[in-house]
């Protein structure tokens, strides 16, 4: 994103709309630090600039990934939906993506607030790749890897800054303890934060199969989260019969 210095009156109205503090007032004119800007579009859409000085410059590769990962209204080609993730557990009753005995894992790097450079995303992806996970093919982050087996990203992307990037994959439940150990280690090696979540089918008896693994690892778990109530049709089981 850029600000036309000839139009800007230096009112400062746009400053609080930048989630990564990339806008500053320099000599009474607002200026965007392009290295820090994640191309989320928030200032353009919501700051209501009184003189329309904010404009979207043409984005070329590799900077385009900033918009894909940061602008909520950008539709990712891989998933076909807006935002930076996939349908994940939200449609699990019709896709059967997460089956009993497995957990879906999403590591949202940069969330909340801090954003991330892609080199930190790579660091985490390479760490979890030790578990021989298969990264979610339709997640745009996976398409940014030069080697999805090792979690290596394309070199030209590593310094790109995005608001967040979701590393998504599935594991067998018994792999969770090792995954948690790996994440605890890599969490100490990055400059940013990540938000971690696990998705799982609820057992036929109403139990949550991931609960004991999380408890045994001594991890904090939120009292709130997402529940798919199974109303989508056709049900995955019905489809396969």
């Amino acid at each position: 994103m850029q600000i036309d210095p000839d139009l800007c009156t230096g009112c400062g109205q746009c400053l609080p709309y930048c989630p990564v503090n990339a806008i500053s007032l320099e000599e009474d004119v607002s200026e965007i630090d392009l290295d820090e800007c994640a191309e989320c579009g928030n200032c353009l859409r919501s700051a209501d600039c009184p003189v329309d000085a904010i404009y979207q410059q043409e984005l070329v590769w590799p900077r385009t990934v900033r918009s894909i990962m940061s602008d909520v209204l950008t539709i990712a080609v891989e998933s076909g939906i807006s935002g930076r993730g996939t349908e994940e557990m939200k449609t699990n009753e019709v896709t059967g993506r997460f089956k009993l005995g497995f957990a879906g894992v999403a590591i949202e790097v940069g969330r909340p607030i801090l954003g991330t450079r892609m080199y930190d995303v790579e660091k985490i992806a390479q760490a979890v790749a030790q578990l021989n996970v298969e990264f979610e093919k339709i997640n745009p982050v996976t398409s940014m890897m030069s080697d999805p087996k090792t979690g290596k990203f394309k070199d030209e992307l590593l310094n790109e800054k995005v608001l967040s990037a979701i590393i998504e994959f599935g594991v067998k439940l018994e792999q969770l303890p090792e995954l948690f150990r790996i994440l605890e280690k890599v969490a100490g090696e990055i400059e940013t934060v990540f938000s971690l979540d696990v998705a799982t089918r609820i057992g036929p008896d109403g139990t949550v199969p991931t609960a004991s693994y999380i408890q045994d690892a001594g991890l904090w778990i939120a009292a709130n989260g997402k529940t798919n109530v199974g109303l989508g049709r056709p049900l995955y089981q019905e489809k396969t019969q």
Partner: protein
Amino acid sequence: MTHTLHRIGSAESLKEDYVVLVMPSKDINHEGSGPKLRRFLKMALEAGAVKIGDARLGNQYHQGGIDNLLNNVEDRAVVHGVFKDQDALIRILQDLKAAKLGLSVVVSGLFDEVEACCNRTGLKGHTINQSLGRWGRTDRLPPQEILEINTMCGHGMVTVGLIEEVIEDVKNGECTPEEGGERLFKPCMCGIFNPHRAVKLIRTLAEKGD
């Protein structure tokens, strides 16, 4: 897409915060889903939703009003209703069950409360998504009370700077907590930010002083 997950807050505060998402699945049931999604949004308004939203095309302000939001819904959209209490949640779940839209329905909120509402409507959880919190350089994050407001927009569009500005304006009598809540809702493009809950949090922070 985990934009309604990872909301932070006390149980008391989260008891006033539920998001119901409805979406089709690509290549399985997305064709012709637009009218069904629109029907849900109208049902949500009738059930007392605080806000409705469309993650594909933007919130009511971005689209120029609720009517435009309703008219523009596309087949591949992910749409939401934000609710502030269990009564409204039970009503929309009852209505969704009866409507048999055939689309996936996900409820974000306190698991125990959501389960209780499902039990009241004869629904059962199929799959859940649990948040294991924030890892890494959490020392760089702002205080918990700011995070409680910020995390209601999972895409981070309700910025720390804007939250602080609104609290300051309320403190100085330049706007009411209600006006502040609406100001914070506007940048949340999906329309999942809960201004009802935000008003209470803003009021508390403004009264706290420096």
